[in-house]
């Protein structure tokens, strides 16, 4: 197969970005939107074509990674060379499909949602930039190229979160997202450097080759009780945790909801936040063979994050924040699945994680876009301002309900299958984690239906103007994503995307599926009792659990802890002394040198009097003095 056309998948979005970015002001806003959307449509078709071709060609029952392009970019030493290229393997092709599909839906949806907004062209330019960065990230052939696109993704996320830059909260959220992920990327970079120092390569294929040096002969160096490889893998995971908003680097994601809602759907639900999962999956053989300890860490962090975020999500009132915490929780699931997975025949968790990534992208994008549709109609983010919308917005209502059922894990919707695989994988590996994830599944069902009932049922508040269904540009993506949410569970994922490229044999366990359906139904029922009609039970429960409720409502004060550490500890004990040293010692030295120079210049500048005869005199008497010195004082 010739895959050289895949270069277009990378080139088109960047060209569109440049074109809209440079020319956006000069054309009609709608035109730039249509241009971006149609460009992305082409990219989506190309991606589907690529996926179809790739998954259609097996070599000995398995999929082989293909490096379509490999251009030499930088040469540090003979062994440490950085390439730029395009890598196709089941993982990256699957991500291609996810990214382009969700991105296309978001592009179409934004035509309606962002209509008439100031900076419409800028919005589409940034969307294209983001799509380009994300596609580059998943197509990277080596970890360094990935890092570059990783940062580009961070930048475009920053730009899109701060899209409403007149709002101080949006600016603060954009800065927060950028700084937190950037801080995590510092760990990523150090991890890359350590890893490449010991393995002498950046290349993914070389790094993850089971017979390669990186896996067969890992370094034996030990640092602070842990092997250096484990350190490197943990540091790389830190970068992934930053992008994927794992505890304790999750604080930026809820705030990132300040961006336009379609952006939240694209970046903060479906694509960018799963970059961390993608990263771990990409280096999975390395994790699995050289550093199982770090996988264990990943599993526990993922598990904790999913529980933690699920509890917080139950108390939030801003519907986008509920969805943000739900995203955290679901990414926690994916991390758990990766953490409990083995390689090859035991790679159920790996497959389940990516399956969940796949299905989650659709139903979470659907949830966000649905929420956007509701916000568009009600002009508020708070669920207290909503209620009874099901009769005003039928399409949004049905699609949102489908998404809620999907995330709750009701068969035969897609979320059921992927979540079930994760639970099976967790059950086989670690019973405690399984129990936690099982509980989280119930909580998820509860908070999602709390959200659903509060928006579409419950009592109807007095709206300023009657809410109405969104335009077709917004409902069509909703319907499409709803269909995807329903049917993506039937994709034979275990045949396609597995840790070693070979088909994986999976079984359906009623022992696991039964209880998970049960707890989902319990969660939904509890939500129905509390929120389907207006009553005082939620308040009374909140009052009875006052302390815990308040903590969860305030997101367990993690932001405050960060503020305390940064403002009080770091600012006072590190930054202030450093600043003092800089202002008084470093600047002082420089000022002293400068002032001395100025003083002496002032003293001798009088010689530059403009009186030519004195210049002549200095010159001639100087010559005479020199002659005298040379001739008579030797």
């Amino acid at each position: 197969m010739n895959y050289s056309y895949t270069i277009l998948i990378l080139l088109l979005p960047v060209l569109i970005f440049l074109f809209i970015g440079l020319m956006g002001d000069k054309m009609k806003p709608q035109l730039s939107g249509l241009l971006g959307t149609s460009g992305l449509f082409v990219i989506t078709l190309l991606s589907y074509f690529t996926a179809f071709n790739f998954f259609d060609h097996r070599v000995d029952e398995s999929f082989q990674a293909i490096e379509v392009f490999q251009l030499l970019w930088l040469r540090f030493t003979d062994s440490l060379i950085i390439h730029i290229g395009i890598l196709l393997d089941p993982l990256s092709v699957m991500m291609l499909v996810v990214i382009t599909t969700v991105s296309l839906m978001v592009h179409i949806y934004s035509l309606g949602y962002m209509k008439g907004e100031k900076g419409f062209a800028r919005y589409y330019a940034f969307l294209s930039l983001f799509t380009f960065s994300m596609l580059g990230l998943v197509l990277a052939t080596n970890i360094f190229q990935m890092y570059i696109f990783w940062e580009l993704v961070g930048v475009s996320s920053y730009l899109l979160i701060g899209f409403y830059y007149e709002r101080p909260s949006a600016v603060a959220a954009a800065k927060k997202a950028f700084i937190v992920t950037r801080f995590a990327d510092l760990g990523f970079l150090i991890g890359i450097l350590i890893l490449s120092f010991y393995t002498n390569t950046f290349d993914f294929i070389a790094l993850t080759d089971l017979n390669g040096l990186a896996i067969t002969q890992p370094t034996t160096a030990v640092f602070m009780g842990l092997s250096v490889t484990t350190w490197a893998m943990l540091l790389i995971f830190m970068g992934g945790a930053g992008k994927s908003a794992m505890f304790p680097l999750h604080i930026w994601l809820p705030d990132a909801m300040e961006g336009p809602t379609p952006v939240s759907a694209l970046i903060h639900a479906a694509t960018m936040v799963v970059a961390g999962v993608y990263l771990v999956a990409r280096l999975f053989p390395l994790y699995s063979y050289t550093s199982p300890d770090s996988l264990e860490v990943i599993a526990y962090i993922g598990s904790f994050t999913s529980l933690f975020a699920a509890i917080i999500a139950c108390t939030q009132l801003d519907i986008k924040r509920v969805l943000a915490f739900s995203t955290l929780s679901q990414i926690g699931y994916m991390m758990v699945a990766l953490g409990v997975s083995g390689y090859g025949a035991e790679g159920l968790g790996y497959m389940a994680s990516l399956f969940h990534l796949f299905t989650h992208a659709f139903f979470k994008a659907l949830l966000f876009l649905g929420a956007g549709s509701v916000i568009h109609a009600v002009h508020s983010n708070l669920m207290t301002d909503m209620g009874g919308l099901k009769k005003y917005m039928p399409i949004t209502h049905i699609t949102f309900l489908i998404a809620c059922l999907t995330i709750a894990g009701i068969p035969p919707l897609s979320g059921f299958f992927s979540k079930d695989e994760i639970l099976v994988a967790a059950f086989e590996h670690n019973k405690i984690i399984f129990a936690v994830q099982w509980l989280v599944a119930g909580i998820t069902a509860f908070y999602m239906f709390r959200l659903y009932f509060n928006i579409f049922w419950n009592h109807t508040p007095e709206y300023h103007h009657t809410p109405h269904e969104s335009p077709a540009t917004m409902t069509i993506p909703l319907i499409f994503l709803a269909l995807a949410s329903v049917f993506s569970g039937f994709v034979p994922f275990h045949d396609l995307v597995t840790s070693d490229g070979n088909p994986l044999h999976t079984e359906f366990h009623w022992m696991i599926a039964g209880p998970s359906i049960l707890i989902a139904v319990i969660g939904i029922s509890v939500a129905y009792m509390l929120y389907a009609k207006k009553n005082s039970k939620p308040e009374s429960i909140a009052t009875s659990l006052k302390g815990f409720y308040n903590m969860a409502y305030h997101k367990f004060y993690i932001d405050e802890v960060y503020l305390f550490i940064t403002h009080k500890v770091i600012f006072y004990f590190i930054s202030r002394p450093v600043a003092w040293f800089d202002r008084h010692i470093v600047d002082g030295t420089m000022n002293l040198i400068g002032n001395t120079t100025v003083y002496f210049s002032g003293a001798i500048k009088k010689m530059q009097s403009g009186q030519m005869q004195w210049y002549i005199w200095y010159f001639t008497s100087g010559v005479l003095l020199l002659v005298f010195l040379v001739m008579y004082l030797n």
Partner: protein
Amino acid sequence: MTGPKIIFFILAAAIVVFSILSIFSRRILRAAIYLLFVLVAMAGLYYMMNFQFLAAVQLMLYAGGIVVLIIFSILLTSQIDSKLQAPKGSHLLAGGITAIAGIALSAITILQFTFKPSQENAVGTDMRTIGLQLMNTDVQGYALPFEVISVLLLAALVGSIFIAQKKKV
């Protein structure tokens, strides 16, 4: 005292005295005339050293050209009977010290050094020899400096016209 010696001392005295007068005179036109005397006396010196052509050029160029030019510019820029300002004390002191120290240093150095007079036969300094050498490109030929100086003179001609012309403002 022989004839040449007497002539030399007369010329030397004239040169020194008139040059000093030229720089100390407060009437600028007189200073120019004193300069003329110095230049004429120098022409005599060249003549004594058997460089008749050079003496003639000295008279034509300096006495006839440069001094006249200077006098023109004096007439252009100042009144004939106006007196120059007396030199400033500080300038006088600085200049005097430099001049006397320079003369002393140079004279001592020169007088300590013994020159060896050449025993070679003198070449003729008639017009034919000078003309041949000036237009020659051999070892003793000066065609290149001659051509270069002609370009320099042309440049100076154009440049001085350009500088001195009235700007069309």
